[in-house]
């Protein structure tokens, strides 16, 4: 009987609490800009998504120590998705009601789901370095911002790098290039561009899928051993990447011939393998590990120095931590730009923030002021180009840290543009969207 009454009390308490939780939020009235944070701190991508989330949140804290965005303080709330689409959608719905400025889902699957919802709710989605590649076309995808690069940019740069290694584009003919990819929308994104390039240069593209989450890859690497491709492009994320490199090691496939996407090129992927991963290269979404950047030092001093750091101090400046910092910076600068038009020191809505993101113009000086000198190249977006910068470079693991090993590459617009236009036009037809005209953009 005692247990019953306890259970009853617990039930009543939980009902009361849930009423408290579900009650409408009053935050929007204060002068605070609210950024929802979708995290993947648990689940198959936790080792990689955790530093990203820490960097993302730490940058907001840094902006707050400098007085916010023209005096508007930043608030944020985390919601755990564990890289699952349905949980991501639930988080979106939950945080949307609290006056969300913009979302960064950090999952291509969630991005696909939210792409359908964002236009209805008028909330921009920043997908820096992931998401739908055709969403670069802002005339059709008005609310998606794949800032700094899409998977098509990544794939294009990877092929350019391979060509350079071989000594020219004409040498690609007859070569075998394998794509080992996470079997999800994320891993499949680069395929159309690679197929286009394969047609252009006459190389043989082999598609080797790895079932999510990617801890079982024996069969895939047996195929690699049999086919002996000249290069392997690795589209891995989370636990998959480290497994791939270990399998390559076991198969005896040279790590020097492997190029990972920027999500498969960070410390958690190679640290435990150490020397075994030596020579493994990955694309860098402009930035790499940046322990010497000004923004890193600022965060160490103003956030970690005050005991406010989100994660361990050692990870500040690591590749994915920096990705989080850069993503947060783009979001904050979008709001700052929007304030220029809609009123400095005011709280921006999602719709106003979109205008800011569409008119971002971060030149070298602006980046240097923000502490990103040498980390990023200038970013300039427009209504029709939601990406802002088609540049990337390569960095290589030397057994202890990531070092840049190439010059900058620019994705070839002659290859990229037709694909983006074809895919986005098809999407617009399917969804009966009329692409925005330049006049509409000015509004």
């Amino acid at each position: 009987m005692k247990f019953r009454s306890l259970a009853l009390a617990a039930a009543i308490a939980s009902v009361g609490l849930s009423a408290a939780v579900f009650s409408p939020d009053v935050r929007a009235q204060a002068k605070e800009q609210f950024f929802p944070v979708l995290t993947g701190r648990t689940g198959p991508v936790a080792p990689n998504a955790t530093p990203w989330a820490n960097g993302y949140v730490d940058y907001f804290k840094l902006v707050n120590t400098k007085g916010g965005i023209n005096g508007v303080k930043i608030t944020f709330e985390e919601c755990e998705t564990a890289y699952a689409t349905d949980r991501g959608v639930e988080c979106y719905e939950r945080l949307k009601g609290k006056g969300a400025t913009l979302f960064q889902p950090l999952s291509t699957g969630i991005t696909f789901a939210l792409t359908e919802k964002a236009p209805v709710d008028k909330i921009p989605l920043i997908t820096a370095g992931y998401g739908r590649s055709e969403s670069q076309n802002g005339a059709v995808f008005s609310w998606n911002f794949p800032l700094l690069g899409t998977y098509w940019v990544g794939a294009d740069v990877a092929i350019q790098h391979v060509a350079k290694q071989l000594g020219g584009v004409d040498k690609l003919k007859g070569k075998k290039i394998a794509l080992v990819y996470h079997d999800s929308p994320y891993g499949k994104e680069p395929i159309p561009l690679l197929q286009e390039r394969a047609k252009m240069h006459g190389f043989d593209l082999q598609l080797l899928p790895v079932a999510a989450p990617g801890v079982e890859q024996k069969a895939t690497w047996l195929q690699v051993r049999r086919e002996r491709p000249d290069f392997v492009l690795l589209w891995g994320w989370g636990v998959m990447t480290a497994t791939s490199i270990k399998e390559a090691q076991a198969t005896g496939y040279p790590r020097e011939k492997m190029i990972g996407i920027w999500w498969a090129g960070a410390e958690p992927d190679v640290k435990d393998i150490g020397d075994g991963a030596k020579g493994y290269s990955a694309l860098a979404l402009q930035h790499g590990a940046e322990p010497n950047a000004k923004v890193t030092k600022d965060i160490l001093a103003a956030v970690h120095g005050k005991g406010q750091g989100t994660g361990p101090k050692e990870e500040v400046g690591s590749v994915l931590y920096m990705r989080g910092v850069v993503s947060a910076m783009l979001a904050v600068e979008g709001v700052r730009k929007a304030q220029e038009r809609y009123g400095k020191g005011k709280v921006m809505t999602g719709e106003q923030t979109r205008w800011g993101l569409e008119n971002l113009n971060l030149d070298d000086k602006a980046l240097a002021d923000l502490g990103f000198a040498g980390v990023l190249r200038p970013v300039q977006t427009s209504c029709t180009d939601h990406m802002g910068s088609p540049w990337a470079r390569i960095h290589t693991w030397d057994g202890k840290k990531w070092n840049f090993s190439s010059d900058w590459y620019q994705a070839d617009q002659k290859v990229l543009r037709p694909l983006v236009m074809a895919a986005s036009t098809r999407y617009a037809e399917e969804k009966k969207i009329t692409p925005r005209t330049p006049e509409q953009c000015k509004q």
Partner: protein
Amino acid sequence: MIYRENGQFKTTYAADQQIFTIAQDKWFVLGLIAFAFIGVPMLADEYMFRAILIPFLILSLAALGVNLLVGYCGQITLGAGAFMAIGAYAAYNFMIRIDGMPLIAALLLGGVATAGMGILFGIPSLRVRGLYLAVATLAAQFFCDWAFLRLGWFTNYSPSGSVSISNLSVFGWSIDSPIEKYLFCLIFIVAFAFFAKNLTRASIGRQWMAIRDMDVAAEVIGIRPMWAKLSAFAVSSFFVGVAGALWGFVHLGSWEPAAFSIDRSFQLLFMVIIGGLGSIMGSFFGAAFIVILPVVLNQILPALGALVGVEISTAGIAHAEFIIFGSLIVFFLIVEPHGLARLWAIAKEKLRLWPFPH
């Protein structure tokens, strides 16, 4: 006390055979439906609709389908996720490949296509049973995962393998606001729940139950096992397929095969086991338990932590959610192995002569 059938005399066969023979039951269910149609739209906000009520309704429908097969006919299936996927992709293909396809027809045709596949994957049930059948139905899961990932035709050659549908409308009623989506799903679920309830009271449902209780004996009294088992597979798959189509069209809007992974199959089976095997009401209880509880836990834990002055990290909440959810499953299965529906039945019995169930 309140719940007693004393004085309710049936004078015709029709009155004796209605769905709810006790007036209180009838009024309660009618009241509940009226509340769901009128009260809920006035009370709930957008978050409640999109994140809780719509997934709950759709997964209840799927659980109902699984319950027909597992609870009423006794055929364990681990392919429910796959059947949801078939429903979703079939409806998607009917929608985009046939011009002017009405939405409801596409959803139902998705269900019909699933029923066909259900019969196909149900054939092993004629020779194997129990756990062996569960393993055989796993084949459906793996086959569908493979087919929807690898065969471009099903996804209309979408480069990423993700398909999407939008601008839903029925007879000029465009379903885009959360309330409309909720009502649309609610209409489906109410219609299907009554359909299921009637099926289980009719000859076909009695055949299923006879097969479940002892198939040899059922065969001896003249029930054809093949017909009974395959019809259970077909009807169950039809329900699950329509639920899958609704899940894709109404809830997600854009989906990939991972939305219907093996996890979903397990989830549906657990809903049925926790809710109550062989009970229509139990499907709803199970769906509520599995869908709503994790979300509520996820939101209550930080509030609880704040109450005692502890800030729980995001990862900590996610882990705690799993721990509490798991222990609650164990708790309920120990306290009431027949599921939440049995608790409901006991509660009703207690209401007759408080507090003694009889």
